[in-house]
């Protein structure tokens, strides 16, 4: 019998963050994975980040997580999405070399102190007095531990479908994990079934690249990680390509509907509405004659092309026949058909905001087991679970991020309060405080926590603090620092703008959309001003100061809304409250309140199924 502090089950994106953060905090951690070389293996898209997901990666990085660094080292195309919009919705995304990503992830995990990797699979969770005591593996080994983090991805009773053929497994060519679901159900957990899908992989050399549209990466690529140095990007950069389906393609696909596991009811799990299969799109949006497809490289040395947008579980021959009607893919060779995968999940109202389960102390869920989809969502939960498991073992207060603090806070709050019926993906619209939760200020929002937990080095933290100070000092300075008409009017004139009469503060001038802060600071030198000099040499801070000045009014309003909301967050509901004694509650409200056991009125009001009158009753009760 071997003793560990924490056992992490599964070496995917959640498992990597959970195991490395807990080990980084000084816990003795073991990571159990069926295949060590599958660490961080990307099951679906060979890409990291994207709208709102890029925010998550930046936040994970600010807390001291690994995803950003691994993605930076293995990215083969970097783009900042939404560049034409405001800075709050800019989101970094990269195309990754799938093989290198996994290798790098294994290297990072393998090099982590206090962290052991065991190749095995867990078949039972051992519990004593509602507290985790260890796990039992398929090789019959009993590992004793004080906390277990389950991050088993799509492997729990995984079932893959292509046409009417089903194979057990969590990913192509890999076995499912059985036993854990049954073990959890025996412990009293409620399980559900979800579905996700992946598109076919094509051979690179069989595609007619001449006729498809090119989508290049950014000319000035930006890394995810606050820790990535100057020699970025590390790998040669390659483009993606765009093509689309057409009516002929749709017609062929329709032929296969009778053999579709989705339409014939073989697939019981609920799939994501934002990432439907191609057959779903054709049915639900019949009026659309074509759908855009992205040809994404799987790696620098790889012959595989990922056909993004063409996720399907139709029979393989139908998939291929349809692909041949797509522009540029007329002679494409399909290396592997798309497939759907069904897996068990545990509706996330069963976990607390720390991701510890409410039923069993010391047991944490992270990633797809909580009903999310996406590497970034999984990683975000992994780091929160890892940190909290370590804190609990060390007898320290828990770590819960607020909705107004981080997308990670929004993600977990949504999961716990709304539970989920389809795979949950992050969107910027889920974050009501979006303007403040920007990817550019992730370090200013969160690095203090990473530093506190020992996951962020002193130098990095001090650098971020210094930047934070410079930004606030600059904003104060620009409120009072005024430019004279004689100095600024020439610039205004060249931009075709109205001049000013006598003087105007930088902060006010900066609100004109046509003027950048850089423009203003270059006018009639502020040579002797230290703050201005420092700012001019630090583009990161400069950008943030500019954002704060330009959008001041909006940011202030958002801040006011946060303050108003937080009043509700401060009305604490005792966890011992028995909702069955509050007679006026609606039946659904009572049931939902009882299962979530919210900490505050604010949280209670976000629980789906809880009505405003339920909240009134709670308020009246709490006042009495």
């Amino acid at each position, binding site marked *: 019998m071997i003793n560990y502090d924490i056992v992490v089950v599964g070496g995917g994106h959640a498992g990597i963050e959970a195991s490395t953060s807990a080990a980084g905090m000084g816990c003795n951690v073991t990571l159990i994975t069926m295949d060590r070389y599958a660490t961080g293996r990307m099951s679906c898209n060979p890409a990291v980040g994207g709208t709102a997901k890029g925010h998550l990666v930046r936040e994970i990085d600010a807390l001291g997580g690994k995803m950003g660094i691994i993605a930076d080292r293995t990215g083969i195309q970097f783009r900042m*999405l939404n560049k034409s919009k405001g800075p709050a*919705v800019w989101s970094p995304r990269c195309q990754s070399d799938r093989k290198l990503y996994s290798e790098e992830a294994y290297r990072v995990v393998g090099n982590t102190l206090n962290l052991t990797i065991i190749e095995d699979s867990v078949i039972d969770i051992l519990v004593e007095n509602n507290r985790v005591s260890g796990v039992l593996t398929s090789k019959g080994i009993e590992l004793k531990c004080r906390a277990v983090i389950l991050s088993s991805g799509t492997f729990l009773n995984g079932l893959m479908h292509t046409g009417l053929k089903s194979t057990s497994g969590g990913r192509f060519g890999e076995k499912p994990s059985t036993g854990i679901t049954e073990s959890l159900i025996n412990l009293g957990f409620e399980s559900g079934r979800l579905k996700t899908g992946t598109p076919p992989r094509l051979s690179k050399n069989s595609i007619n690249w001449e006729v498809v549209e090119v989508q290049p990466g950014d000319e000035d690529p930006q890394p995810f990680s606050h820790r990535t140095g100057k020699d970025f990007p590390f790998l040669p950069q390659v483009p993606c390509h765009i093509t689309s389906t057409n009516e002929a393609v749709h017609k062929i696909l329709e032929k296969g509907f009778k053999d579709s596991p989705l339409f014939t009811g073989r697939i019981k799990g609920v799939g994501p509405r934002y990432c439907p299969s191609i057959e779903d799109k054709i049915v639900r949006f019949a009026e659309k004659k074509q*759908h855009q497809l992205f040809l994404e490289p799987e790696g620098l040395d790889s012959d595989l092309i990922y056909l*993004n947008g063409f996720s399907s579980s139709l029979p393989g021959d139908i998939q291929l026949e349809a692909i041949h009607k797509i522009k540029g893919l007329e002679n494409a060779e399909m290396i592997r058909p798309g497939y759907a995968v069904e897996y068990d999940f545990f509706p996330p109202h069963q976990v607390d905001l720390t991701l510890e389960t409410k039923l069993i102390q010391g047991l944490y869920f992270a990633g797809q087991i909580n009903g999310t989809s996406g590497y970034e969502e999984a990683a975000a939960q992994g780091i929160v679970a890892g940190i909290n498991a370590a804190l609990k073992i060390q007898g320290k207060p828990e770590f819960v991020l607020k909705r107004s603090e981080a997308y990670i806070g929004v993600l977990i709050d949504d999961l716990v309060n709304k539970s989920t019926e389809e795979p949950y993906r992050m*969107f910027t619209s889920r974050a*009501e405080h979006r303007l403040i939760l920007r990817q550019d200020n992730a370090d200013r929002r969160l690095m203090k926590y990473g530093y506190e937990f020992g996951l962020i080095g002193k130098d990095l933290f001090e650098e971020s603090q210094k930047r934070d100070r410079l930004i606030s000092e600059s904003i104060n300075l620009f409120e009072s620092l005024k430019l004279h008409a004689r100095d600024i009017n020439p610039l205004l004139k060249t931009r075709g703008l109205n001049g000013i009469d006598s003087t105007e503060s930088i902060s006010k001038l900066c609100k004109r*959309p046509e003027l950048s802060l850089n423009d203003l600071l270059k006018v009639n030198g502020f040579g002797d001003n230290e703050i201005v000099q420092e700012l001019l040499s630090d583009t990161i801070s400069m950008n943030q100061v500019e954002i704060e000045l330009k959008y001041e009014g909006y940011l202030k309003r958002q801040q006011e809304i946060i303050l108003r909301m937080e009043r509700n967050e401060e009305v604490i509901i005792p966890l011992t409250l028995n909702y069955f004694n509050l007679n*006026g509650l609606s039946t659904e409200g009572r049931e939902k309140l009882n299962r979530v056991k919210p900490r505050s009125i604010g949280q209670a009001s976000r629980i789906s199924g809880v009505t405003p009158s339920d909240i009134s*009753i709670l308020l*009246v009760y709490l006042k009495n």
Partner: protein
Amino acid sequence: MNKFTEDTITAIATPSGVGAISVIRVSGPLSFEIADKIFKGKIRLTDSSTHTIHYGQIFDENDVLVDDVLISVFRNPHSYTGEDSVEISTHCNPLISKKIIDLLLKNGTRLAEPGEFTKRAYLNDKLDLVQAEAVADVISSRTDASLRGARNQLNGLLSKKVDELRNSLINASSFVELELDFAEEDVEFINLGDLMNRVRTIENEIDLLLKSYNFGKVIKEGVNVALVGKPNVGKSSLLNYILKESRAIVSHIPGTTRDIIREDVSIDGIMFRLYDTAGIRISEDIIEKEGVLRSRKAVKDADLVILINDVDQGKSEDLLNEISSLINSNRILSILNKIDLGMTGLDDYDVKISALTGEGIESLFRKMKEKALGTSNYTEKSAVVSNSRHFDCLRKAKESLGKVKNSIENKMSGEFIAVDLRKAIDDLGEIVGIVTSEDILNNIFTKFCIGK
């Protein structure tokens, strides 16, 4: 244990005074049990089914008959409050009602607080917030029109309208969010001009509702009217004519109407509260001075001032000026009295009447209604705002839409537009009491093909 949901409450549901019957309402989990303790009928109320009426007698603790009564049984959730409840119809006599209430209290009920039945109905999801507020209005309605208005609100007319507006905003918002979260997708986005048009349309609708507030308020609360004029122009005669009963002292001695006399009349369903004022002029008489102060206050508080001139004295410009300094001049109705004495002068008045013969009174009534309601086309069937909380929420929503328009005009990116759109959605949600954040995403997924 929560006090208000656990106990059983009672109160007299009909107004005090003499009538044919009086109704006592009991609501709460012990309603049947408690009523059975004092009631003797053919079967026990506890055993009877919902929506049945039972004849029987109520006896006091000494087995003395109190009254013959009819008791209606409502079982939860099919009652007004959503709880078990009974309604006891007794012969109307304050002593009987009091005795029965006393008996109910002794047997375990508690006297209901004002509005508590309605509060329970709201808390039990029998009514939404707007409807709950409307109940209070139905109860306090004093004219037909205001009763109809309140009834409509109870039926959800305003809620329906607000929901409709809120949904259009959610739609508009979805377009904005679509562009932010799904920019990489192959979907068509709304252009700023279209968005502006949508926002304007919604804003106009909100404006209509805001404007209806005056109408709604008039219908619900009535109109305060100050009668003002120099001594002897016939203020009290006019008032009397309107009331067809003599209460104010009518005499030729100036300044005898020292107290403000108030009379309520209903004209075409609208309640007018008529205040007969003493003169507004300066007086040495201490009692009159007091009267002058009160008159000035009445004018300031009035929704409408009827300035009475007479044929003898002609138009009193000084008085008009004085009133105009106290109240917006479009709220002044300037009339000429005593036209039975012959028409003199070419001054122009809003209405010319004779309080003696009644000539012109009809057109005075018409003018009063016009001034009170404006020239709007509202009927009691329109969604009308009559509650200041609703008005305030609508005003806030409009303010947020103003900011939205501003952002659109300045070509701000969607996330800035979205801030205030969401605020407006929440403001409207506050009226009907719903707040949800999933609405927008749900809308997007049903309307647009998303998914790379």
